[in-house]
Each structure stands twice: as C-alpha cells, then as structure tokens.
C-alpha cells in the first residue's frame, strides 16, 4: 500500500500513548497498564508487518514523508520518517521482540510492587526505539536516541532503593552522554555543512549524492576529509550507546535492572541502536575514495569483540557473562559493518537480537527458578529441574557460539568472518574474529556446565529446590528459540535473501554457492573452532561442575595473574575513577566554591547595599520630611492659638473692633478719593 507511509508515524506513537496513559495510572491498575503496553505494541507489530510486506511488494526502494517542524527566517527545520528495507526489518524485529518480552514480563514482574511503572517505562522505551528506527532526520533520530537513553536510565534504576541500581543507572546515563556529546557535535557540523539533517529529501538530503560529494570534498583543519570527521563524531555516539571499548563500562552494571529490561534493551534493541545508526549513516561513513572512518569502525569493533570475550571468561554472575557477551557481539556487528557493509552487520544484529534476548530471558527464568540466586557457582543440575528453560537456553547458546548449519549465529558470524577475510587493509580483524569466536564458545560452555549440569544447588546448601518457571515465561522462550534457529536461514550463502532484500535486488536460491571454495573453507574453519572450544570447555568444566563447594575456577588455578586481570575487567572502571571522575569532582568542587563564595558574596553585597540605601532613605524620610511636616503643622496650630487668643467671647470688644475698622475704612475712602 503506497499510503502506508502516511500512517507509519503511528508505530511509535501508539506505545507513546500507552506510556502517557500508563504514567497517570494508579499502582493498583496492573491489568490496565499491562494491557495498554501489550496492546499498543501488538498494534505496532501489526503495522510493522504491513510495512514489511509492502516493502516486499513495492519495488520503490525508499519512501519518506517529511514535514516542517519550525520555520526560521531563512531556513526551516524539517523532520520526517521513512520506510525502506532496513527500516522494515528493524521494525519487525523490535516490535516482535518487544511484544514477546512484554508477555514474558507479565510473569517475571508479577510479584513486583511497581508493575504499572514498569510497563509505562517499557512502552516509553518502545516508542523511542521505534521512532529512532523510522526517523528520516538525524535530529529526530537524536531526539529518540535521547528518549531511549532516558528510558534505559529509568529502567536500570527501576529498583531505585538499591544503591547499586541507582549508581548503575547514573553510570549508564553519564557514559552514554559522553558519546552523545560527540554525536551532537557531529550533527551540528553536518547541519552546518550540508544545510539539512533530513536523510533523504528528493536529492537534497544529507545522505544523498550531492551532499556527500560536498562533504567528501571539504577538508578540516587537520587535513581530514569533512565526511570522515563527521563520521568519526557520529561513530563516537554509537560507541557510547553500543558499549564499544572504551565506553563499554556501563553495560555490565546495567544488569542491575530487571531481566526483561536486560533482554529488551541491553541485548536486542537499544545497544543495537548504535549499530543501526552506523548502518543508517553508512553512505556518509563510506563516502569518498578512502573512507578512513570505516577502518576505525572495523578496528574498534574487532578489539571490542576479543576484549569483552576475554573478560567474560572470568565472571561469575550469570547476567554479567551474557552482558560481556553482548559487548563482544556488538563488536562483531561493528566489524561486520566495517568490512562487509550494511547487510553483513545488520544480519548479525537481527540474529543476535533473537538469541541474545532468548539467553537473557532464559537467565531470568533460571534466576526466577533459583529464587533470586545469580551466582553460577551456586547453581547446578538445572537440566532436570528446569527442562524447558534448559532446552531453549541451549538453543540460544548454540546460536551464539555459532554451531554449524542449524543455528542462526553460525550463518551471520560466518558472513562477518568471510567479509573480514576479504578485507583489503588488514587481516588482523579476521584473526581477532576467529579468536573471539573461540572464546565465546569456551565461556558459554563454562556457563552452561555450571548452571545446568552438575550437582544441584540444594546439595550445596541452598534454601529451597529450584523449579520450572510458569508457562507465561517459558512460551516466549520457546518462540524465541524457534527464531534463533530459523532466522539464520535468511542469510545463507545459498540463498542470500537478507543481502538482496536490503539492496533491492532479487535473491536466487543456489545451493551450489555453499560449496564454493572460499565459503566451504570458512564453514569448515568455523566448525573446527567451535568444536575445539566446546570440547575444551566441557573437559575443564564438567568435572568441576560436580564438585562442591565450587569456588576455585580451573583457569584461576592455572593462570592466576591472567585470571585476576580478567575478573577485574582489566581495571578499566578503576582507571576511569582515578582520572576522569576525580577531575570532574575537583572541577565541581571549584564550581561550588565559586558559587557559594564569589557569586553569593556578590549577591549579598548588592542586597546589603540596597538595605543600607533603604535605611538612609528611611532616616531622611523620618527626620527630614516627617519632621518638616510636623513642624509646619505645629506652626499652624501655634498661629491658630494666637488667633484664638483674640477671641475673648466679649461682644463689646468685637463691636469696638468693628467700629475702628469702619473708621479706618471711612478714612481710607475719604483720603483715597481726595
């Protein structure tokens, strides 16, 4: 339907409406709050499906709808939304995952006091994320970017009575803010150089050829091309939001929030927003003959992938392992964008969204079943006690590790590695990617062994036996597991539908493409890597899983200094605390002193001066004016008393005075007329 584009604005607006209404609800209206959120998201999902199908049928690659926000004298600020394959696929993913996770939250948050507030914030997040996806203007994107960041803050700090949660929320917000400042600067620069922030506007948009040519041709002071400089600033924003090194420190702490939040926001959608931004701005980042920004993207991604995977090997909190895994996979996505283009990176984003949210929801189910326990060393034997959770979690884990052929992660990661291998600038990213894949499989095996295999936790002294989660939680897990498997088939080399969909071409199913030499070699390499990692991990950890108590990690025993470094996350947090935060504290103390002493002193001086002037005025008024007036009145009274002395009440005296006056009058008349 060509008119669908006109109604696309409803997709983020319905959840926004639900959030607004939900904000006004009382705490007891739980069903209404949940109903609003789920209903709005369901409607958005249906609209997104319609949009997706319309992009399948209509061959116009890109539709947009722009409007003027406000009119300045010589220019206007325009916003708009658009629909193209990238948008459609993201819409489908976001709305579907949000819907599934909302339903999951009905069970997970059932016993929480602030049920209503949770769904309000989740709807708000949904609105922001969907707005971000359909935005045709960098300004609108930024607005929704900030909205999403705000909802993340609100949801991480959902249990704000816990100091750890409040601190984590603050950390998340401030760290992403650093990236956002760079993004804002890039946005302003882009606006000043290209005159518009609309992406596509009939040839005048900032991502269209005319603007790109101008930006590539322009140069900054350091000799860098303008497009490169702006791209780097925008990428810095993505670094913050997607948790790349060095701004990754907030993501593990963000696990203080409820598990559905971690699943939706910190696995599938918000952190993917950075990747999405890079994908959206890809024409700008890859513009020109030597796109240096794209190389930066690749290196940052590759380093992050290995860095985070290494740290994950030494963590003991079930959610933190998955969080570091997320950071690592985001690095993969960035690397994919850098080496292979939009389709490669986005494919991994889509598959990752499904299996990572599945893993988080599964972890939530495990935590729920273990009555709040989150340390994997204290879990065990859940394979028998929580079979559904185990089955779905295993599916997700295998997708993440990239188990060949039937799991989606395999195909998407292979696409990235394949593109990295063919990268002309260096093959280091390829090797880093392979190392990362090995580490991923290793630490996931470790986690699964300790959580699901081995001795049950109650034998180790836990309070009550673990139990399977209710259906409202396990059914979403099953749904996601199905997608974790099936989504991969959209992007195999045999049928590169995803790639062709995004690029507007038609894909053809050619089974033989699987067996082309480079592809085959890569397939075998990946399989080998994963297999070795599984075997090693199983050998090391399955034995330990039966031990009790399980404090000593075999890795720690063999390489204590390395383990110590990994467990403390390379001391990045401590480094930041000693440098940046200390500097900031010093600055704020200085500002406080300035405010309290200097400015307040000035204000006090002015007020003191005013009061002194007022006192002078009052003194003048009382002694000068009042006294003068009183003196005048006194004079009148004295005159009056003198005059009244003349009245002695005797008529004869008055008569005499009259007579005298007549005489004088007569004399005056006579002499006057003489």
């Amino acid at each position, binding site marked *: 339907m060509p008119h669908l584009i006109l109604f696309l604005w409803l997709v983020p607006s319905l959840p926004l409406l639900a959030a607004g209404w939900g904000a006004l609800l009382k705490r007891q209206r739980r069903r209404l709050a949940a109903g609003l959120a789920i209903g709005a998201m369901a409607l958005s999902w249906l609209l997104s499906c319609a949009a997706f199908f319309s992009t399948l049928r209509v061959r116009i690659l890109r539709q947009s709808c722009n409007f003027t926000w406000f009119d300045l004298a010589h220019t206007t600020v325009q916003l708009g939304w658009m629909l193209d394959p990238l948008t459609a696929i993201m819409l489908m993913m976001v709305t579907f995952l949000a819907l599934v996770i909302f339903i999951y939250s009905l069970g997970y948050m059932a016993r929480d006091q602030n049920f209503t507030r949770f769904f309000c914030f989740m709807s708000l997040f949904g609105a922001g994320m969907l707005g971000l996806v359909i935005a045709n203007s960098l300004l609108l994107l930024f607005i929704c970017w900030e909205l999403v960041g705000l909802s993340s803050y609100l949801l991480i700090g959902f249990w704000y009575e816990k100091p750890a949660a409040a601190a984590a929320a603050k950390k998340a917000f401030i760290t992403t803010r650093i990236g956002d400042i760079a993004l804002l600067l890039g946005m302003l620069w882009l606006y000043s150089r290209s005159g518009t922030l609309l992406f596509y506007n009939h040839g005048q948009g900032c991502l269209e050829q005319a603007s790109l040519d101008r930006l590539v041709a322009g140069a900054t002071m350091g000799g860098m091309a303008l497009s490169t400089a702006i791209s780097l600033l925008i990428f810095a924003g993505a670094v913050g939001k997607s948790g790349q090194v060095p701004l990754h420190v907030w993501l593990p702490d963000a696990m203080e929030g409820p598990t559905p939040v971690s699943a939706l926001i910190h696995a599938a959608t918000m952190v993917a927003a950075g990747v999405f931004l890079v994908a959206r701005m890809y024409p700008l980042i890859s513009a020109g003959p030597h796109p240096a920004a794209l190389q930066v993207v690749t290196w940052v991604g590759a380093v992050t992938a290995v860095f985070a995977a290494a740290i994950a090997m030494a963590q003991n909190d079930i959610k933190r392992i998955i969080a570091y895994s997320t950071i690592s996979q985001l690095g993969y996505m960035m690397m994919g964008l850098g080496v292979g283009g939009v389709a490669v990176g986005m494919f991994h984003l889509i598959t990752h969204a499904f299996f990572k949210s599945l893993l988080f929801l599964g972890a939530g189910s495990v935590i729920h079943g273990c009555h709040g326990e989150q340390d994997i060393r204290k879990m065990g034997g859940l394979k028998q006690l929580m079979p559904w959770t185990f089955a779905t979690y295993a599916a997700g884990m295998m997708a993440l590790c990239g188990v060949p052929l039937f799991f989606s992660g395999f195909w998407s990661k292979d696409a990235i590695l394949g593109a990295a291998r063919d990268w002309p600038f260096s093959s280091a990213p390829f090797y880093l990617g392979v190392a990362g894949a090995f580490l991923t499989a290793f630490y996931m095996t470790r986690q699964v062994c300790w959580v699901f295999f081995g001795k049950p936790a109650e034998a180790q002294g836990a309070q009550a036996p673990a139990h399977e989660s209710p259906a409202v939680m396990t059914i979403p897990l099953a749904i996601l597991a199905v997608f974790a498997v099936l989504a991969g088939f959209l992007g195999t080399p045999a049928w590169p539908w995803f790639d062709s969909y995004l690029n507007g071409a038609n894909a053809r199913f050619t089974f033989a493409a699987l067996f082309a030499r480079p592809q085959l070699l890569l397939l075998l390499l990946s399989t080998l890597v994963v297999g070795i990692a599984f075997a090693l991990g199983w050998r090391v950890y399955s034995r330990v899983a039966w031990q009790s108590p399980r404090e000593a990690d075999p890795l720690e025993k063999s390489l204590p200094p390395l383990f110590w470094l990994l467990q403390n996350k390379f001391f990045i947090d401590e480094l930041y605390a000693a440098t940046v935060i200390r500097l900031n504290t010093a600055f704020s103390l200085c500002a406080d002193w300035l405010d309290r002493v200097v400015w307040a002193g000035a204000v006090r001086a002015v007020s003191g001066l005013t009061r002194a002037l007022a006192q002078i005025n009052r003194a003048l008024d009382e002694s000068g004016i009042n006294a003068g007036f009183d003196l005048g009145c006194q004079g009148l009274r004295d005159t009056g008393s003198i*005059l*009244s002395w003349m009245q002695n009440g005797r008529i*004869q005296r008055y008569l005499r005075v009259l007579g005298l006056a007549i005489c004088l009058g007569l004399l005056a008349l006579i002499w006057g007329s003489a």
Partner: protein
Amino acid sequence: MMNPPLSHYLLLSALLFSIGFAGAVARRGAILVLIGIELMLNAANLNFIAFWRFGANPQALTGVMFVLFSIAIAAAEVAVGLALVIAIYRQRKTTRLDAMDSLKG
C-alpha cells in the same frame, strides 16, 4: 417754608449714630447695648428720610419704604434680642456682657 439744609440733618444723624455706638461699646448691661443699637438704627432711618426729602425724586417714595421696613425689622430684632437677654438672665442671673464670654477661643 424753609428747611434747614440737608447737612444739618446728616449731622444730627451722625451724632445720634455715634452716641448709640458709644453706648453700645461702653456700657456693661446687655439691654443698654440693645438700646444703643436701636439708636444707631434710628439714626440710619433719619438719614434715609432726609435724603428722600432732599433727593431728586421724592415721588418714588423709596426712602419712606425703606424706613418702614427698617422699623418693622427693628421691632422683630428687639423682640428676639430681649427674649434672648431674658433667657440668659434666667440661667446666669445677670445681664452683664462680660459674664457672657463662654464662646471665647
């Protein structure tokens, strides 16, 4: 019939006037002051009649009319004045004017 000139009448009137005035301001009793005032009024009446008689138009009777009214009013005034004197005498048992100074300032 020759009349004395006008000036003589006026002289007489002036004399009567000043005698009346002297009595009004020099005597102590209220009734005497009233008598003095009556004398002054009469002197003025004489003035009017004299000027009427010696004037240009005696047919108009202006002087006569004025004097008639003056007499009537003088009568009314004396009546009220003496009533006042009697009322005050009843209160204060005296008609001395220097005892009636309660309107002093």
